[in-house]
């Protein structure tokens, strides 16, 4: 089988405030791209924050570690190459304080935060015990939901991380970058559009990630959600809608409504006349019945014809194992691993592709590295659904290569891990569970997430 395309990390560089680089770690020297969202919205922005408030349980044994955490955030680590300090990296001017709460109870934690005299300009960083992310009722989701309902994003840090000194020191930079993102900043974006053609210079390309998830405990309830990025991987906005999963018409109707709302928002936020929409949707939880509903929703949604083209890609995990006998990558003991290059794409059949997302890559200096430590490489199956597409039949604006590049580019956007140059999932579908569960939880408390002004405009879920 011959490969169809090979995307290289070095061809998808990042744009920082003071220059362009291949890896995200350069933010330390090059500075974050913007302190406010790049799409118009005046209500969020890093400069609105004056304080990082570290909330932790009082009398706990971790007091010393919290003190050290604050010191490290303020002054950086002894080895400044690993971590320089919050304000130093992000070019901000925030104070950092700790505040103890009495019990691991979301309401008590929120009240503690809310009673602080500067809570209106404070960003909450909450220290919690480590729990499995698969637990819907965990303190993690419950606490996040209480703050979100008040339009406040949070950063959770686990006690385990504070106590694991080796992991801790490498986690500080990605941690503060995540906080920066949740404050409304843009740490970096792709230096240029992911498409190779110059013919579309006056065309804006939007990538809309769409997901549909069930409530983990109540199967008749579900949620549809979208996240929107531009052709540089710059965040635009999110939206969601409640679904009644046992009523197929309800799914179709509401998903169409969500897509229509999103299209209006996309068009409202730009002055570029010609727009293309690429929809990424994940097939993880979707049955054929729901897929049919999505298909109907996409093809019946109003305003889609405002775009000069709409392309639809279904992205799902693949269990195909790819090995490269000629791979130059070696493990620690010097043995060849046969890891394939990340970004290599095979054509399985017409409109169906396999993209390798973990494997080896060449660094900017030409070193052979990998974004997988051990185990088998992962890959995604990407299927182009032409039957849902809208486009002028006389010309194909985006080729398959461009559409696949949209997936690779979105895998590059990984604010949660600075050292990994390519995430195994594109950012458009990676946070399905986080978004779905918190949206459902808010709904249980009578809060419609899509009505929260601040939250809609930031990546609160990373």
């Amino acid at each position, binding site marked *: 089988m011959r490969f169809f395309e090979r995307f290289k990390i070095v061809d998808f560089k990042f744009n920082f405030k003071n220059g362009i680089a291949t890896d995200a770690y350069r933010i330390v020297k090059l500075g974050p791209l913007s302190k406010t969202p790049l799409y118009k919205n005046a209500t969020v922005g890093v400069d609105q924050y004056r304080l990082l408030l570290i909330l932790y349980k009082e009398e706990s044994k971790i007091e010393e570690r919290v003190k050290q955490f604050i010191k490290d955030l303020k002054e950086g680590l002894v080895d400044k190459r690993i971590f320089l300090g919050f304000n130093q990296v992000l070019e901000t001017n925030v104070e950092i304080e700790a505040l103890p709460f009495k019990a691991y109870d979301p309401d008590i934690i929120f009240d503690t935060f809310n009673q602080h005299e500067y809570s209106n300009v404070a960003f909450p960083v909450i220290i919690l015990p480590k729990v499995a992310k698969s637990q819907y009722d965990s303190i993690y989701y419950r606490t996040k939901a209480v703050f979100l309902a008040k339009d406040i994003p949070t950063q959770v840090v686990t006690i385990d991380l504070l106590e694991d000194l080796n992991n801790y020191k490498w986690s500080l930079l990605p941690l503060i970058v995540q906080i920066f993102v949740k404050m409304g900043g843009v740490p970096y974006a792709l230096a240029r559009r992911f498409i190779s053609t110059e013919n579309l210079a006056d065309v804006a390309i939007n990538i809309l990630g769409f997901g549909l998830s069930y409530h983990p405990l109540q199967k008749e309830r579900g949620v549809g959600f979208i996240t929107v990025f531009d052709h540089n991987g710059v965040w635009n906005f999110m939206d969601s809608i409640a679904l009644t999963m046992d009523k197929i018409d309800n799914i179709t109707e509401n998903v169409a409504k969500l897509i229509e709302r999103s299209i209006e928002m996309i068009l409202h936020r730009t002055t570029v006349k010609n727009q293309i929409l690429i929809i990424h949707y994940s097939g993880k939880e979707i049955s054929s019945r729901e897929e049919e509903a999505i298909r109907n929703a996409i093809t019946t949604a109003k305003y889609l014809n405002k775009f000069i083209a709409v392309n639809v890609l279904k992205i799902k995990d693949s269990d195909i*194992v790819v*090995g490269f006998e000629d791979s130059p990558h070696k493990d620690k003991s010097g043995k060849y*691993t046969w*890891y394939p290059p990340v970004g290599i794409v095979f054509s399985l059949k017409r409109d169906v592709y396999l993209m390798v997302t973990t494997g080896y890559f060449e660094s900017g200096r030409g070193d052979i590295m990998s974004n997988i430590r*051990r*185990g088998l490489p992962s890959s995604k199956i990407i299927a182009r659904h032409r039957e849902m597409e809208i486009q002028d039949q006389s010309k194909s604006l985006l080729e398959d290569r461009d559409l696949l590049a949209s997936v690779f580019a979105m895998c590059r956007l990984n604010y949660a891990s600075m050292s990994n140059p390519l995430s195994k999932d594109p950012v458009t579908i990676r946070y399905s569970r986080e978004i779905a569960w918190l949206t459902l939880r808010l709904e249980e408390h009578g809060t419609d997430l899509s009505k929260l002004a601040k939250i809609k405009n930031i990546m609160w879920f990373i």
Partner: protein
Amino acid sequence: MSSTSYIIPRLLNNTLRRIIPKELLCKKEKPGEEIAICLNVTRLNEYYQTISSIRNEKEKEPLFLFCEVYPKLCYEAQENRCSQFFKVVKHMTLRFQQATDEYTQIYLILHSYYSRESDLDLLKIIDYMNSMGLSLELIKDVRVNYIKKGEHTKLCKIESIDKNSLELKYDTHTEKIDLNYLRNNQQSQEKVILRINPTYRTSREFIEKYLCKDFDKHKELNADRNPEKYFKSLKNDLEILKSIIGEKIYLSGVYFSIGNFLKLES
């Protein structure tokens, strides 16, 4: 590739199910797996000895080295605690699938990994605890699956246990079960099976402490594979599979043979 609905692959899959000896099929089917063969180390060793093309390639099968390090997880022995409850096996899933593009081909989809066969029947564990002079109180808080024919499996927590009875909590309900009744009921159509569910922290802690410290080590076997190790052993797995099902499969007057195109071009 999505379509599995073509007739020939379906018939081939049905034929596979018929020709693979029952004792080689995995005891428990995992969701989405059509046909799965489970080979313990002893059986695997037999194949490596009898198939000439792989006779000298035992180093390519990681289970052999694993079983040297953790024999208790591989071989049966009376005095061996782990082997009463667990056995690590090579798990080979396979199915035929048709792909139609420019022309039609039928693929054999073969995937191998390592899994653990568990026998965590609560009655067996109670007997074991008694034989070792361990208090049954130690089983408190462990999570068990409550399995009854015609009902959904319920995940319960053991609220209390003594030599006569145990109390199970499910959601907000509590159910008391007489242990003698449970034992006598095992032959009945209405039998209730209680099996420890090792996914939960309390269950894992109990298993590690009192049954088998290394019961999760097979995960290392899976995590340690890279494509080089995977494909070298998969090549041999294919030989083993051919030895099990024969070089050719006969179906309605046609012989189907398995070709080997395990090679990528770059």
